[in-house]
């Protein structure tokens, strides 16, 4: 059962920035890149659980603020040569609003 939840407007997130959606105990980091694409991953780096929402966003990836791992925002995978994966959420934008799929 998929469940699309509206979490806010695209403009609520700065370009090349991120905001956090609190889903119970889990923080979801929602990112906006320079092409106004929006991505969502679990706000926890696979390395040492750094908060990815606090990282620097570039292209379709984010650099974790703790130890500079780069995470691919399209699937939550660490970019080579690092290895690991954090949870990934599907997103869509409708009329300027962001929806995140919570399973």
């Amino acid at each position, binding site marked *: 059962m998929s469940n699309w939840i509206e979490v806010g407007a695209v403009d609520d997130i700065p370009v090349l920035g991120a*905001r956090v*959606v609190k889903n119970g105990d889990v923080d979801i980091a929602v990112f906006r890149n320079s092409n106004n694409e929006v991505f969502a991953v679990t706000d926890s780096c696979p390395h040492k659980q*750094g908060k990815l929402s606090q990282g*620097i966003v570039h292209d379709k990836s984010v650099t974790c603020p703790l130890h500079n791992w780069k995470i691919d925002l399209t699937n939550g995978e660490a970019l080579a040569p690092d290895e690991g994966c954090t949870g990934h959420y599907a997103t869509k934008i409708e009329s300027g609003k962001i929806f995140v799929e*919570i399973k």
Partner: protein
Amino acid sequence: MKEKLVVIGNGMAGMRTVEELLEIAPDKYDITVFGAEPYGNYNRILLSPVLCGEKTIDEIMLNDDQWYEDNNITLHKGVKVTDVNRKACTVTADDGTTIDYDRLLISTGSDPFIIPVPGHDLPGVIGFRDIKDVDTMIETSKSKKRAVVIGGGLLGLEAANGLIKQGMDVTVIHLMDWLMERQMDDISGEMLKHSLEEQGMKFKMKASTTEILGDGKVEKIVFADGSEIETDLIVMAVGIRPNIELAKKIGLHCERGIVVNDTLQTYDPKIYAIGECIEHRGMVYGLVAPLFEMAKVCANHLAEYGIGIYEGTITSTKLKVTGIDLFSAGDFMGDETTEDIVVRDASRGVYKKIVIKDEKILGAVLYGDTIDGAWYFQLMREGTNISDIRDALMFGQGHLGDSGHGGNVVANMSDDAEICGCNGVSKGDVVKAITVKGLFTLEEVRAHTKASSSCGSCTGLVEQILESTLGGDYAAPEAKPICACTDHTHDYVREQIRKQKLTSISDVYKKLNWKNDDGCAACRMSVNYYVISTWPEESKDDYQSRFINERAHANIQKDGTYSVIPRMWGGMTTPKELRAIANVAEKFDLDTVHVTGGQRIGLYGVKKEELPLIWKDLNDEGLVSGHAYGKALRTVKTCVGKEWCRFGTQDSTGIGIKLEQLSWGSWMPHKFKMAASGCPRNCAEATIKDFGVVCVDSGYELHIGGNGGIAVRVTDLLTKVETEEEVLEYAAAFCQIYREEARYLERTAPWIERVGFTYVKESIVDDAAKRKELAERFKFSQEVTKSQDDPWTERSTKGVDAHEFVPLKVIG
């Protein structure tokens, strides 16, 4: 339709170029590669360890068949290109294949030079160049015992060493007076010979070969003096000859090698050439190191980015023979216009010679103790003026306190010795990554192992491991680009920002041809700093290019909470301030209250959402941000000075507060710490700060460039002044010259060592006009950027960056 790129030569140079090209323009070309050897691409420089039995062929493969497949590269193995039709743009190979090209890359490498004496074509006479040669040597050693190596250079000695390891009795024949005459002087050459003799190697020096005799195979070698040696194998290692047969045949201009310009283009603009087969500015290179610089430039032009030129490479040498430690670089012989500094310690087997001209290092040769080779090489490449460190030069970089990895002798370390204390990486991890993954550069080692990627203090050690593992084939790049997003250096980027008046990151990326639109975390932070520090009035700080600590105005901790450290001016506080801090700690359940090293109080475990609330409470009692999170002025540490102390000579707390009021809020290349001590007892430890004041009865001593962190560095005494006004002017001028000229993330200590203390002193002390201008520019920057509007107040009460501190949404 994709264009067609054909590469002739499947060696390291060609494939490195292809790798670089795939990185920046993966879809531009259909790529076809011809390789005469029946293997994939392997790391030729590790053939010595294969010969020694330390590695297998599989371990030195760089790109296997799968790699070519994954990257849609057509590889013709064991196929030799026989002709190129430059008019029709086609390549023909000896298996009958003929294909078209739009661009052609020639990387045919070099062949060992075989001395054309009678008998040179007998079976058993080989070079030392490829897997086949190594196979022949190993095979011969199984049934035969005697070998002769002609050539006492790098390659010859490595071959001889390998043959001894395979159980052979080896004599090295050398034409010159001493071994490795192109990398060593006579003294170190003699020491090397002595060490090798102890390992069982035999030598015949000043010997010229006249004839090789044998009936159907090698049996004997004869010399000009009439003497002869019986042998079963002769390895010729007397040099290499660029393989330019094909290039000549198709009419490309060749001298010793295929002549190329600074973009690695031959006289035919559709044809590029790279590696050992080329001649560039009159130089032919026989080491692998220059290939990497060439490959970068060549790939850039093949991708039609059109930036970057190859200007030649200064190479350094290391010999890959166990138990022998030697390093040489540059002009180590010197002449009547140069000076030498020499250390010679026969009982330790140590010899070091540095050749200096005009206070700059021209070259160095080190034997027995090569720890500082990388450092000398760096000083040499950067052209650093060494007059200030001349007296300590010979003792090396490590004579200063260096925390986290004492000792520093990489060669003697065991594999489990920790190299990178931040990330827990051992020497064995680094060596394994270099050999198994085929790494060549510091950046690659950082990416794969994390070694030296955090605090960076072990960078020198990692470079040493690269050197000792790869030998002479490792070369630190001449000038390092900021990151993989650009080929430009920090200094070049900043110069262009100034010259072209670039006032935003996007301007910089566009004008300087960045490889991607957004850059990465490393270059965005650097370029943002350069833009705002160069054009304080015209530019706008790019919030999203700040590290999280500078966005949130608090330090992120490992669990994602933050710390709050209010400013305590000159280390002074009041009961009211302490009460405010205590109240906040209790109100927000902050258990950890810590007295910092900079005379302040830190509160830890703060939830991000609560930061503005805490700041509001602290602001209400007059406390402001301590910038403990910023590349900025941190603290001004003081002692109580003459107001209380019986030894105090001046008002050290007073001058400390004034210094802090002058400079707080100013963004710097890195953190910046000051201190003011009331007397030469120096209780505030001013001589390990970026800017330190030591009060004396007659005035104030000003000290610069100290560091108490990674590598302890004691300040240099800048000058002595008489008044507080002068102290403040010099401080402002020093802050500004550091802000304008140091590279991002370069503390004052390494910056001063790089540019030379004399330069800084001349700029600030000797040139009063320049000092005043610098101080004015500092004050201007402080005013125009409103840097002293407390960032905490702006966020706690004025609504700045409100989105930073609240969740987008709370669900579930």
